[in-house]
């Protein structure tokens, strides 16, 4: 039977270093994708993921289940790490991810698959950070609404409603077939 996250945390704090290795294996892929969707650059995502896990292992003694699921805790560290990355590298504030950076300020070499970005930025840019996270976690990571709610906060129902509104926002702004055309056109 797979140990719960909380049990692994307890085991690690009791001296079982392998327990953290298991937590790491459980989350490194998820956190990497979460960060990559926000940065769209492999090396940047790797740097941030390393930072996230250093902070996690250093701060594990402060985590307790009473504060919420472990997933919420580590995703919060990841979200803040991405924000810190952009704050440390840019003079402007209020940048949560790559989609908040104006087009004329983006450094092309720091973005993978520029073609991919150009495809998705049109609709991602119309959404709030929270909405973007719900879209990426539900559609791209196939995460359940319950798990998403644990990560971003709120109830399962509120996450569903926000997902619905996000979908409607994109459709209303671009039209139901415009997005289809956007992704099927050859560049």
């Amino acid at each position, binding site marked *: 039977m797979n140990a719960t996250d909380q049990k692994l945390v307890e085991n*690690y*704090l*009791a*001296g079982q*270093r392998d327990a*953290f*290795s298991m937590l*790491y*294996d459980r989350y*490194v*892929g998820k956190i*990497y*994708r979460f960060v*990559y*969707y926000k940065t*769209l650059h*492999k090396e940047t995502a*790797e740097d941030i*993921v*390393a930072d996230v*896990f*250093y*902070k996690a*292992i*250093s*701060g*594990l*003694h*402060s985590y307790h289940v009473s504060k919420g699921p472990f997933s919420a*805790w580590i995703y*919060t*560290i990841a979200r*803040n*790490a991405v*924000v*810190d990355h952009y*704050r440390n590298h840019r003079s402007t504030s209020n940048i949560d991810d790559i989609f908040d950076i104006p087009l004329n300020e983006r450094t092309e070499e720091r973005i*993978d*698959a520029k073609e*991919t970005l150009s*495809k*998705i930025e049109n609709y991602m840019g119309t959404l709030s950070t929270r909405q973007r996270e719900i*879209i990426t976690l*539900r*559609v*791209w990571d*196939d995460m359940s609404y319950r798990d998403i709610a644990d990560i971003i906060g709120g109830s399962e129902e509120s996450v*569903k*409603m926000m*997902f*619905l509104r996000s*979908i*409607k926002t994109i*459709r209303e702004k671009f039209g*139901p077939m415009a*997005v*289809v055309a*956007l*992704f*099927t056109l050859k560049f």
Partner: protein
Amino acid sequence: MHTNIEIILRELYALDPSLKEHDESMRSFIKSLIASRPPTQIDAAFVTELRARLLGHVPEPSPVAHHDFSWWMVRLVPMGALALLLIIFAPERFNLTPTSVPSATSSKILESGTSLMVVDTATNSLNIAMQKPERTFLGDYVALEMPGFLVVHEENKGEFGAILGVSELLQGGTSEKIPVILSRDMADEETLFASLYADNGDGKFNKETDTPVIDSLSGGPMYMVVPVSRFASPDMISE
């Protein structure tokens, strides 16, 4: 992917049945959203290397008790002499509890009541045991989010007094057995304060331009109260 589209559509239609009227375009739309997912193959070598670094460089986990350095604790410091007497007659291993900041919050700049600009960094801690009355102060363990310094102060009526010594620049990460050469020998039964400062980038300590690392739990500067005793022994000093 096909199953995922059906599930997502079913969920959306349950929330807004009117969307069912546009089923064909909704299907194409969700399919396109899924197809727009950027490729995110994580580098296996990166995963392996990071795991090794994490488990190879972090100290063994140990129980941590947060010590609330409240205003009252600072005022009670002069009674440290009495505490030392108790310690002398209680030869158990004495280990000062570390103050750690396991915060997941982002960095921010705050302005304290004394108009100090302080830096709240996400992962900082220090662990210092009782000192022998010698010229060299020894910090057992320091973890810093950013490069900084371990600073030793005299105690002055329960508050930080003059700085007696500053460590070499400590790089971000963990440091152990950090020596701080003081301007004078420590005195038996004296009490000192050890604090952390974040470097402003020039690599040199300057009390005016470097910023105290704060404890996000207490909101004040991160520090430890360090007693000095001629009876401090290797058993009392943390490994």
